[in-house]
């Protein structure tokens, strides 16, 4: 593994000059403190970020978030912007789980109102399909699926009645990307996704019930409608098999196109095409469609959570969407006066208070950013700062970031012992597999408090509230 000399350019900002390797087009930056820099050196994430810096059309720098770790092609926690429309788009820079993201719901119920959370978590586990390949209760016709792909949450709310119009304002891009084209999505992807709307999926996807433990910024918390002691629900899921297939199809197509044109990149998974090319444009519109599917998925899950809330806590119980962010996506945004395609792979948008894209209620406050910790540890709500545009193309981290492989985690942690420890600390756990539990153990992840602290020091986002888990549902 090549060693790279990083130069500190700010409190928690480091840079590797573009001369570090001959094929780099831009420098590489990482947002980290000394410990996180060492963790980044421990795997190949830094080398992968250097590989990203070779993408045709990349501008300014490739940047790694504090939770960065080794992935495939792009590191997880990597952000890169390419010029639009002439620069490239790389499906690996978004990932197979297109628009994997997080949505936070606020219930208005206090801990005292809730009492034992076990019945609520139990009902959630009965109502929300989890696990790989399990079909949801929503069966879509071909035409309906195309509407979901083309319109996302707008269709699901307005024509399927699975939500409220006011939900849309609190979803990134209102849960519907206009550049989506259902015809760009292959039949194979549609086959996979047709019965998966409203499902959580497996792996590290989860639905967590929390209590607002600490409010760090009272004014911002009030604007977001969060109160100390309030019960919240955080869901983490994406576009399921449909998104996986869109990425698989596109990587394959671009790999062939690159071979024909003689373009060689240091990692084959970085396969890319100019955004203006047939392949690039087709992928972008398919990616937008898959992103719409993921937002629609989280919207259907929101509807299910609301149903369970009324069933358990009475008909006045409700859940309000605080916000919904994507952390595997590419968006066309402005960097200064230039239009760029921002690739966020395990990174979320973090627009500041002056952004016109924010809901009216959040203007002057900042876009909510969610940083889930590992199972059993705290999660954080932050709001983006205007300075995030300069630091990382308006991007923040997406979570604690893995520190251990699944294998190493299972060697250190015994699943059923962890389950008992979580339950002993007052967390109701619904996870059918002790093995999966062990793989997602807290020891497998970086310290979320440190990651959030670095994000704040980097002036990307500021802390608003700390959420403590009281129940978790895993696939």
């Amino acid at each position, binding site marked *: 593994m090549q060693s790279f000399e990083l130069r500190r350019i700010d409190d928690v900002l480091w840079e590797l000059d573009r001369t570090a390797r001959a094929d780099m087009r831009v420098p590489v930056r990482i947002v980290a403190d000394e410990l996180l820099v060492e963790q980044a050196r421990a795997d190949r994430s830094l080398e992968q970020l250097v590989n990203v810096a070779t993408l045709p059309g990349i501008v300014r720098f490739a940047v790694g978030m504090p939770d960065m770790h080794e992935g*495939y*092609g792009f590191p997880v926690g990597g952000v890169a912007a390419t010029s639009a429309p002439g620069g490239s788009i790389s499906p690996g820079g978004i990932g197979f789980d297109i628009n994997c993201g997080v949505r936070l719901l606020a219930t208005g119920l206090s801990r005292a109102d809730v009492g034992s959370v076990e019945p609520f978590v139990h009902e959630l586990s009965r109502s929300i399909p989890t696990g*790989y390949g399990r079909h949801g209760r929503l069966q879509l016709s071909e035409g309906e699926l195309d509407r979901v792909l083309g319109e996302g949450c707008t269709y699901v709310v307005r024509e399927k009645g699975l939500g409220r119009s006011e939900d849309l304002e609190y979803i990134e891009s209102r849960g519907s990307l206009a550049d989506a084209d259902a015809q760009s999505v292959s039949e194979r992807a549609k086959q*996979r996704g047709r019965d998966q709307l409203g499902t959580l999926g*497996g*792996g590290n996807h989860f639905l967590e019930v929390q209590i607002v433990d600490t409010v760090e910024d009272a004014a911002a918390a009030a604007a977001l409608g969060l109160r100390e002691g309030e019960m919240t629900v955080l869901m983490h899921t994406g576009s399921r098999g449909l998104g*996986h297939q869109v990425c698989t199809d596109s990587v394959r197509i671009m790999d062939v196109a690159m071979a024909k044109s003689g373009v060689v990149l240091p990692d084959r998974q970085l396969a890319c095409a100019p955004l203006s090319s047939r392949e690039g444009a087709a992928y972008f519109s398919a990616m937008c469609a898959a992103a719409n599917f993921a937002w629609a998925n989280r919207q259907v899950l929101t509807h299910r959570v609301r149903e369970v809330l009324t069933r358990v806590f009475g008909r006045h119980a409700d859940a309000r969407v605080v916000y919904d962010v994507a952390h595997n996506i590419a968006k066309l945004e402005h960097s200064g006066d230039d239009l760029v395609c921002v690739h966020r792979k395990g990174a979320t948008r973090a627009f500041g208070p002056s952004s016109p894209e924010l809901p009216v209620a959040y203007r002057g406050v900042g876009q909510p950013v969610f940083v889930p910790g590992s199972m059993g540890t705290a999660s954080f709500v932050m709001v983006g700062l205007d300075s995030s545009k300069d630091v990382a193309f308006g991007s923040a981290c997406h979570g604690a970031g893995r520190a251990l*492989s*699944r294998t190493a985690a299972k060697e250190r942690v015994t*699943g059923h012992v962890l389950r008992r420890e979580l339950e002993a600390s007052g967390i109701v756990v619904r996870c059918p597999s002790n093995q999966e539990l062990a793989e997602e153990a807290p020891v497998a992840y970086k310290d979320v408090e440190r990651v959030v602290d670095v994000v704040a020091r980097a002036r990307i986002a500021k802390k608003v509230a700390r959420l403590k888990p009281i129940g978790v549902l895993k696939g």
Partner: protein
Amino acid sequence: MYVHGTHAVSEKDDLVTVGDRVADALEDAVVRGEPADEHPPHAQRPKHRIQLRSLEGGIRVAIGVGSFRDDPHRGRQSQIGSKFGSLRALDAMRGPRAASRRERTMVDRMPVARRENWNIAGRGPVDPAVEHGNHLVPVADGESAAWQKVLLHVDDEQSVSAAQIHGARLESNARARKGGNTVRGMASPAGASHVFEAHTAEVRLHLWGADLASLFEEAARALAELMLGDDPHGLPGPPEPVSVDALDRAALLAAWINELLFLSETKKQVWVEARVTILDGTHLTATVRGVEPQAIRTAVKAATLHDLRVEACASGGFEATLVLDV
């Protein structure tokens, strides 16, 4: 065979935990010049007996996996005895909670740590050499035992309902990546094997095959193992045809795995058997047979092109590396 000890098994998933504690052995053991038995009878049914290894000196170690309830030769025998004696040779046989000077035969209750040695030539159970202390494997014997992990699935009536043998054979030119940590492999036909190597977030798979077809078949086996874990499964269903083409040999391997994943999700099956029937550089056809899984242990999103390679080995055969997004 090395048995770590007894564990109360109250949850199905605990079997995984127990299994994980049994040492993984990754070396081909050659004991006193005799090779390991390369073709042990496959034991999925409780009544099959498995010869794992031959040891020198006429001592055969045969692991019989049977349901005590059903075995007509054993019935409900209770043979419990204690043996005192001098220090035994290491790794010949150890019972649970064995003290250094005491050995126990434990029959008719589970987990079975040791039973009478069987003469698999069919002469029926004979006085086992171990019980009479007649084994002559010296304490200082430097040859290592042939390690394999035998995972026994036990039902509520303390019967063995299934057994799985795990052991990885590595080619002599295999190497672990820096920081990598082999996990386990699945017993495969001669000339094919695989290991999973650790990756921070994904799974890296290293494969070997005597030829390209067996390499691709091994990839399918590895995928099924990853998806199913150690869960026992039923008999595979009818064959399904598969056809894949790609830009080159390496891309074909990724495309093959991605096709299996697509078929898994759309047909709700995990493909436990694969027969690659035609293979050239960029095209393959195959038949696969699958099972309906009770649960998916590891959800695999896709095979990536990251670190992807398929290469001929200098010593013959092929090896490959593939990273899976999980």
